[in-house]
């Protein structure tokens, strides 16, 4: 909020944002260079430049094909998915007034996954007309609705007259995760062998299915969220006090909550539809950013988006390189890094509660 210009912390924040922007520019270049086929930086830039004439350089032409069809959509998708997950985590943590709220933990992603799985396996069997009508949009639409439904159920289960006990929130999340898990388990029985393999990889979280359509849709969702974030930032700051206080400060709390839930459901739904459940990005990134730039959403939201993009890009690079030429599902990697972080956060809260 730093009203005073020239405030030392405001200057520090400017540097942090600059560093994040730099990292968001460099990390995709790294990710584009490495993989099953590696290339030098100059080669990469030549191949990326649509104006360069490659007719005499078949090898670079091959790089361009690899880039345009496989690697570029994948890296870009990773960036927007990372940004979308981090943004939704940052907003939900404030909405639920709980730093442990993560789309994965409170069942939002599981709801999206169950609905997405239904769209993949059940809908083509039972309602082929719907499946053909919606085409490519079938899974994203279902996932969005699933995410929204899960959010509403959590709010209904754990909330009471504007109050939301953090423990109840996580318990409601456990219930929804269990239910969605059971539902997905049932669907696995119905699935054909082919569907099953895709489906398993998908539930673990992967960017392997990246394509330009997925990138376009997710960048739209991200752009919408970022475009609304300047309008949301101040009411979200006020919500950190309490819903009543935010209302008394003149913010339309009901509307803000609705918009935040719709945006979070869009972010999570779209991410899950194309990449499956990539856990912990929405937990780790916003909490880390809160430590660095503070709780003010005017900085926190853009910082989280940038950091989410960087983290997921680098995680995907690691997932591709660690056991090359095979690759690790990225969800496993983010869980490996994120779960210890979650435990750390939990310990801090427990200790704080003991001192309070």
């Amino acid at each position, binding site marked *: 909020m730093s009203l005073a210009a020239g405030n030392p912390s405001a200057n520090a924040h400017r540097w942090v944002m600059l560093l994040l922007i730099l990292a968001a520019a460099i990390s995709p270049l790294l990710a584009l260079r490495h993989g099953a086929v590696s290339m030098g930086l100059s080669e990469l830039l030549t191949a990326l430049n649509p104006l360069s004439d490659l007719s005499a350089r078949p090898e670079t032409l091959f790089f361009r094909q690899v880039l345009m069809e496989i690697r570029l959509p994948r890296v870009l998708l990773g960036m927007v998915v990372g940004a979308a997950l981090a943004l939704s985590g940052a907003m939900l943590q404030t909405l639920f007034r709980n730093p442990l709220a993560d789309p994965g933990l409170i069942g939002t992603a599981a709801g999206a996954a169950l609905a997405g799985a239904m769209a993949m396996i059940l809908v083509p069997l039972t309602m082929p007309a719907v499946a053909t009508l919606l085409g490519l949009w079938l899974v994203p639409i279902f996932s969005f609705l699933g995410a929204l439904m899960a959010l509403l159920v959590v709010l209904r289960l754990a909330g009471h007259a504007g109050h939301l006990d953090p423990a109840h929130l996580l318990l409601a999340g456990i219930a929804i995760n269990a239910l969605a898990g059971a539902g997905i388990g049932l669907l696995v029985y119905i699935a054909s062998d082919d569907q099953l393999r895709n489906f398993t990889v998908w539930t673990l979280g992967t960017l392997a299915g990246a394509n330009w359509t997925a990138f376009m849709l997710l960048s739209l969702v991200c752009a919408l969220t970022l475009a609304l974030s300047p309008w949301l930032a101040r009411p979200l700051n006020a919500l950190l*006090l309490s819903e009543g206080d935010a209302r*008394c400060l*003149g913010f339309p709390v009901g509307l803000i909550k609705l918009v935040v839930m719709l945006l979070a459901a869009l972010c999570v739904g779209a991410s899950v539809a194309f990449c499956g459940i990539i856990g912990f990005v929405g937990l780790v990134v916003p909490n880390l950013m809160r430590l660095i730039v503070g709780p003010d959403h005017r900085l926190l939201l853009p910082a989280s988006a940038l950091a989410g993009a960087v983290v997921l890009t680098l995680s995907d690079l690691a997932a591709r390189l660690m056991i090359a030429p095979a690759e690790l599902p990225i969800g496993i990697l983010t869980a490996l890094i994120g779960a210890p972080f979650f435990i750390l956060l939990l310990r801090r809260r427990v200790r704080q509660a003991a001192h309070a």
Partner: protein
Amino acid sequence: MLEIKKLSIRRGPREVLTIDQLSLAPGQATAIVGPNGAGKSTLLLALAGLLQPSHGEILLDGKPLNDWPLRELAQRRAYLAQQFSLNAAFSVTDVVALGRSPHKTPREQDQHCIDSALQAVGLADFGDRAYPRLSGGEQQRVHLARVLAQLDWGLENSSSRWALLDEPTASLDLGRRTDVLKTCRALTKQGVGVIAVLHDLNLAWRHFDQVCLLDQGLLIQHGPPAEVLTLNKLQSAYATELMLIKDAQGGHWIAEKN
């Protein structure tokens, strides 16, 4: 003017507050007193617009609270809750600056308002401190400064404004308690109507122009302290034996017998 007309508020099946008529003038300090469960906080929540009445209405300058746009209402009335669950690592200045949210004033004016509000609550040097590290009493005063900032403390403003304070002295020590009540007095001098829930009857007597005595969801009486805080009415409301002590300066003190 803040007026209540045929107000009744239910929580579940139970009617927790019924007030036929009450009007409060800006520029005065009104204390709401009464035993536990009398409906003091409920009245304050209703006046803040946070609790919808099941019957009747509350008018601010002749217009029902519900008809006021939220932002305009926020420029006119601020509410200080009894408890705070804020634990974000805001600086003290950041928290007080939240009070400027409904206003569209230039940055320098906001800063001036925030600085003088912090000074008023005795936290002038605390601006850069981290809010979560403060003591409970300091945190409460930060929120009071936020309320002052919301009501244009130290700025020119002639419209009728209201500070609704739920036990503003609850976690404060003796000296700070008087400071806060003096700040309330200063607010009334700036044209703000102060309405505060208080437990300490002697504070109400000393520092407030008007007192509303509530008991079991009913308004027993509204008037100057000397008229409302009589031994008879208090003994029946609090259901306990009280006594009135006169000091050498002619002041009255209410105390429990034994």
